[in-house]
Every structure is written in C-alpha cells, then in structure tokens.
C-alpha cells in the first residue's frame, strides 16, 4: 500500500496529532513498510470465518443499578491542567467562528 504525504496529514487530523514537518517523511516510510508487511494477510483464505470479538466465550455482564460512592471531585480534578470549581477549564471555543468572521 502506497502511503502519500497527504495520507499522513489526513491520519494526523483524524488522530489529533500534528507531526513536525521533518518527522512526517520518516513516519510515512515506516507506515508504508509496516502496511506492506501486513499485506501477507491477503493471501489467507478467510471465507466463512467469523471475526474474533472476544477470545473466550464471554457474554454480556449486567449488574443492579445501585448508587455507590464515586471518587471525590477534588481528588480527580487535582490532575487537571486547569480547573474552575468542579469543572475542567478549556480555551474559549464557542463563538470563535463568529468573532473571526
């Protein structure tokens, strides 16, 4: 599978990553080589074979809908890069488009 520079940029957008320009070409080459290696799977006859969804015969698990204690908000927010009260704080983004227009 040929991977183009444009493909890598598209993957970055999907994955929320932004490679430095100098890192993009080595990444493209690595991805291409690895995907080429994976093409060996095309030679395997998988007609009528179901995909694995779980390795053992596990079923769905249900439990009673009981209220139990959850982690204290302060303990959880201690790891936030920015918080306000019991909320995570992020840069303003609602109304940005209007402001730029």
């Amino acid at each position, binding site marked *: 599978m040929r991977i183009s520079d444009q*493909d890598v940029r598209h993957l970055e957008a999907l*994955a929320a990553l932004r490679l430095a320009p100098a890192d993009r070409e080595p990444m493209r080459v690595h991805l291409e080589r690895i995907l080429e290696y994976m093409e060996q799977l095309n030679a395997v006859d998988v007609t009528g074979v179901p995909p694995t969804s779980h390795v053992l015969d596990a079923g769905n698990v249900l439990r009673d809908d009981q209220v139990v204690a959850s982690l204290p908000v302060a303990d959880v927010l201690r*790891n936030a890069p920015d918080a306000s009260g019991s909320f995570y704080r992020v840069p303003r983004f609602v109304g940005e488009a209007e402001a730029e227009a």
Partner: protein
Amino acid sequence: MNPALLTIEEQARLLRSRELAPLDLVDAALGRIATLDPQLHAVPQVFAAEARERAKQLANETPGGPLWGIPWLAKDVLTTRLGRTTCGSRILENFRSPYDATVVARLEAAGAILLGKTNMDEFAMGSSTENSAWGPTRNPWNPECVPGGSSGGSAAAVAADLASFALGTDTGGSIRQPAAFCGVVGFKPTYGRVSRYGLVAFASSLDQVGPLTKTVRDAVLVYEAIAGHDAHDSTSLDKPVDRLATDGPAALRGVRVGVPRDFVAQGMDAAAAADFDATLRAAVAAGATLVDVRLERAPASIAVYYIVATAEAAANLSRFDGVRYTHRTAQAGDLATLFAASRTEGFGAEVQRRILLGTYVLSSGYYDAYYLRAQKVRTLIRRDFERAFATCDVIAMPTSPTPAFRIGERAADPLQMYLSDVFTVPANLAGLPAISIPTSTVGGLPLGVQLYAPPLGEARLLQAAEGLEAGLGFQRLGQRGAV
C-alpha cells in the same frame, strides 16, 4: 547471605519464624536499589519512606499469607495512589492516580509492601524499554544490552534482586520477553483471569497483568493473590481460581509437550535454536513426551497483532487530550490546537506511529481490508491452538528468537523490532496462559523457553513449568555472585 537474594518462598519462611522482619527485607531491597539502580535505571520512582513505614506497621501484626511482608515493584502502567503513574510518558508526567489498581489493592491486602514503580516502554509499546520518556533501562546481565520490554524495568529489577517480585503487563509478550532477556520467570495468565481495573489500557482485548519472579513457585504465589473476578472489570472471568498443587520435578512425568517445529524454525538465532533443542531434551529427561503440532497460521500473528493492537490503542489513547489529567500545551490557540499540540508534545515517536497505524486500519475504506480481515485470521490462529491442544497438554516454544540485543541496535527499524515478538504474540491473540522460564546462557546472556496452555489451564501450565524448571537447573544472576 543478603536476604534480598532469596525467593519469596524462602523469605516468607524466615518472616514466619521471625528470623527476619519485614523491615529487614525492605531495607535490603532499598540498599540494592541505591547501589545498583543508578546504572540499571529500572526503578524511576522509589517509595522508601512509605515502604519502611508500612514494614514497621506489619511488624506489629501476626505474619499472614505467603506475600506478607514481601517487598515488590509495580510496572508504571498500573495505577497507584502512591507516587505518580506515568506509563513512561511525558503526557502523564504529573499524573497522580486517585485510586489503586485492583492488583495493587489485592497485594496490599495480602501484606506485600510496594517499594516503587518500574520503567517501561511508553504505554507498553515496545520490546526493549528504550521507548521510555525517562530513558532506557539496562540489562543487569550486560548493561550494554536492553532488558527487553515493555516490562523491562520489572524484569531487570527482579533479575538484580531489587525486589522480591514485580508485576508487569503483557499485551504481546511484554512480561515474557523481558523475563527471558533477564533470566527470570514471567507469567501471563489467561485473558480475563486477572483484573485490568487500574491497568492503563493499551489494547483492551490483549492486555493482561502478571508476575515476574525468581521461580515458578513464586509466580504461583503472586498469581494466587491477584487472580479472580473483579466487579470493576467486566471482562474479568467469574470463575474460581484453581489452587495449585506442586509435585516438584515429577510434574513433567507423562505430560505431552507439543512442539510446533515448522513455526519455531523461522528466523531463529543459531544459539537460541540449539538452546531450545537442549530444553526439549531436558523435558524428555524429566518424563515429558514430545508431540509434533502444527500452528499453520501462527506466522501471520505479527501482522494480525500489529493491526488489532494498534487499532485498539488508537481508540484507547484518544482519552489523553490535554484537558482532564494530562500534559497541556503552552501554545495558544483554539480547542483543536490544544488537543493536537498537547498530544504531539506528550507522546513519543513510537506511540504516535502506533496511533497513526491504528487510525489507518480503522479508517473508512480500510476497515474491512485490515481490521476485519485481521480479526478473521485471529479466529484461524485460535482454532490452530484448539486443534493442537487436542493432542498435547502444553506447547513449548522459544520466548524470543534471539537473546537480548544491544541498546540502539533495533531502534531505527520499527518493523524489525515488531518481528522479535513472533513467539509471544500468539498467546495474546488466542487469550492463552503462557509462561517464560530461563533455560541457559549464551555469551553471558540468558535465554528463555515458553510453555502455552489452553484457556484457564493455569494449574497444568504452572506444574509443567515447575517440572521443567527443576530439570533445567538454571542459576539466577544473584546465585552466581555476579551482582
């Protein structure tokens, strides 16, 4: 004799008879960490004060089970309220978990003493522990060589007697391969046998927690403390954990050992191949019968694994977003910039490569060709094992095609690094329990052999491993007076 060099079994006997106190063991381990870890770099976080405090508390109690008072180390992908849980990544550099992983809580309840956190490949992605944001760990047998990975810190620490045991995690061999490279025992239980609650997810359908220990018996002791159902992990199996008897050397008598010769012949280093043959002879001498088995699709395991594992990783790692508990970029900009810049600054190159690969195989137009096809071939690999286990009790394979390689040797070629996992990934794809035990050394570096068993065949697997271990008579690094 430094008590840090003893096995858990031996230490527990001395604790029960009060010839040793928990603090003696903790101080012996801390002493070795202070002396040896500046070079090895296996334990980036040490909880010396907390561990000594806990040891003093325990001294007022009646000695409990086999792990009571035993110092241990957690791979840094397991959440601990003590210290930070970084997963070897800058993106979690300052993350302090508000809760303990279930395995950590169970060991705490068993009276084991957490000494620190071990180094690892970032988010458990790697086979050498070179991909840690905190720098590589070195192999205690030869500091120019890697300890294997991704649980390389755990393996190096146990090999150098920095702790009595360590926990690792195994997604494609990350317990067993470093165990082999460092001359210790590494055990991956059946998928779902041990809770994954508090194991920071890499590939959820493959990840499993397990012990790295000095002996198979010690692996049994740790396994029995951590295994079993956990309401916090709905994929953990709600089935009783077998108590394991031991018959010592006789445990291999009458055991049918399957050998997939066609598969094993591929890409083996000559010394490793000779060692595997010698190991099979030792198994026969201990009473085992060898059976030829065929794992026709096993050679496709690496291709399947790096599709399934990266797809799951791409999904799992989307939670690291610069908003809730990770590094956040200092770059100004909109929300999309915050996400992308925080992630790109926080993740190392291998993690980014796997996220992009996983994103590719799941993306529109490629999902059927890569991800779905890989999951179908995975079914065929599982069926190969089902067929093989109809004619044998356990399957033997080398753990790695080579002994430990030199630091930097494979860093430039990710595909070459992936191929070194060829004998370990099939166990994860099929959910099977597998154990690596040390066999011998070549050029001053240890080699390992693996045994695989059917799902939930832990009792059979560990008994056979103990029999083989006795037959091989491997001398640990600490028994050789080398460190």
